[in-house]
């Protein structure tokens, strides 16, 4: 974790609104992600979590509001520029480079770790060769980190579901972004895989990545988050540390549903 506590949060979302056609997908959303933390964005299906990710990472335009990353406005930037600034995301639906091996997927995701351009490639300049070697080493390390080293030669689209999820996270984290947005990384994972995922996310955080997490697995969110923002129908209905959010009446009603409410009472 970064020792210095900067006055400014890494990411600031201010009065964000997103209208899709006539639908208000996000209304007047404001929250901040301080550096070095894990912040979670939760809410029922259709609450607008993925939409928020799409806007922050440059895939969709905001109707109103501002998004600042490290103090500078991201408005109008393409996803690739935002990634180059150190903000990357994973996708809710498994997403790999189909037809390419797992190793090639890792290399492609390491794009921003390299510099070599056209001339380097055409003339096989020494620096380009050296860089290529280094990227190969990084790809191996990346796959080892998510436990896919023995899958390197397999076509990425032939991986098991859980493995594809892990590859997706590895690819988002490959360029060592300062802020990593993960959209439901635990979806469809079994408890053992979820446990491994949590260890991975902690490791990434300890390597200096700040994480903004969208996740339906409440146990995981509660254990991992420093701060939770709860969204319902495009609006923030609660925000705070896990313990406060867990007890929030509005959250329990809107998100966890009555069954969960009973369960919580029984537990208490």
């Amino acid at each position: 974790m970064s020792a210095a506590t900067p006055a400014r949060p890494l990411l600031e979302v201010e009065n964000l609104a997103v209208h899709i056609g006539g639908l208000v997908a996000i209304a007047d959303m404001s929250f901040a992600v301080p550096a070095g933390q894990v912040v979670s964005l939760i809410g029922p299906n259709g609450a607008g979590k993925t939409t928020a990710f799409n806007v922050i990472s440059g895939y969709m335009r905001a109707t109103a509001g501002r998004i600042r990353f490290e103090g500078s406005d991201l408005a109008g930037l393409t996803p690739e520029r935002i990634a180059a600034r150190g903000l990357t995301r994973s996708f809710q639906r498994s997403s790999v480079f189909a037809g390419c091996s797992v190793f090639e997927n890792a290399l492609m995701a390491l794009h921003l770790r390299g510099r070599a351009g056209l001339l380097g490639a055409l003339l096989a300049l020494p620096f380009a060769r050296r860089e290529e070697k280094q990227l190969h080493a990084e790809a191996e390390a990346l796959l080892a980190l998510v436990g896919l080293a023995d899958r390197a030669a397999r076509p990425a689209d032939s991986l098991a579901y859980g493995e594809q999820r892990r590859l997706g996270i590895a690819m988002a984290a490959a360029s060592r972004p300062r802020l990593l947005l993960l959209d439901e990384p635990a979806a469809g994972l079994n408890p053992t895989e979820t446990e491994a995922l949590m260890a991975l996310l902690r490791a990434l955080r300890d390597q200096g990545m700040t994480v903004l997490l969208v996740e339906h697995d409440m146990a995981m969110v509660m254990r991992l988050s420093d701060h939770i923002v709860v969204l319902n129908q495009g609006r923030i209905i609660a925000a705070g540390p896990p313990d406060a959010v867990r007890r929030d009446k509005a959250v329990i009603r809107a998100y966890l549903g009555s069954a969960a409410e009973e369960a919580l009472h029984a537990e208490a």
Partner: protein
Amino acid sequence: MSGGESANRPGQFMGYALPWGFVALLALVPVVFPDPYLLAVLTSAGIFIIGAISLNLLLGYTGQLSLGHVAFFGLGAYASALATLGFDIAIGFGLRLQVAPQPVWVGFLAAILVAGGFGWLLGRLAFRVRGAFFVILTVCFAQVLRMVALNWVELTQGPMALIGIPGFALWWPGEGVVELTRKDQNYWLVLAVTVLAFLLVRQLVQSRFGRAMVALRANESLARSVGIRVTHYLTVAAVISAGIAGAAGSLFAHYTRIIDPDVFLFIYTVTMVIMVVTGGKGTLWGPVVGGFIFGLMPDLLRGTAPPEVQWVIYGAAMILFVMFLPRGIVPALQALLRRRAA
């Protein structure tokens, strides 16, 4: 692309000895079979293979279907011919543009630059409109150029054709700088440029640059999320692809010594697309293999059947290849080799 680790690379034999042995064999053809007809057939097939190699960069590696690829070929042919013949035309406002006849190497460079420049323009324009619109735009682009070539008689002689184009001039062992007029000399020149184009594309696609192109083809939104700049890579690929096609056009102009607006015919684009698709798009050897088959087939069939029947056979062969080897010959062979190795 070969899979990351050296263990996945084809062996030394497949990767090195075999291709260079193949090139050496081709280089020996004029010595062993000095038949002018054979050399002429192989030379024009070679020129088309260069075109197919260049198209493969766009169609195969970035996945953009450009059906106006012949535009760059024709632009290269006209640029090179006009630069070497010289011209003097009115450009309006009472001004004239005069160019004195230039050496052929200047024409060759002009062909690459002009075609590459138009590739950049088309890339900039067309990559804003993607998919079907891009395809339509490329077709229109080639058609417009054909109309220009037909009607700008002062510059292009229109349908009367540009004639008297000088042959390629090169330093030749024992003879100094000479105009290449012999069939074998032109054959070797085209072979050399084909090998160069192949190596250039290979170098490109096996680098970080090529990976970015393939990533865009495989999954564009994922590619953008890892920081790959779509417009940059697509535009550069279009420029290089167009530049190589322009070089092929230049070779064509100085080999045939006469060009007319038919160098912009749609059928030539179709031929190149067929070569790439049957051979295997997105593979290095695909356009070479497909190029040999469909570049030589018309000549192999000549005299054996009436022209109409020849075209039927040509079309049937194409359909059969696409039906039974939808990914192309080279990927099918690779899969076969892998299965036998396993």
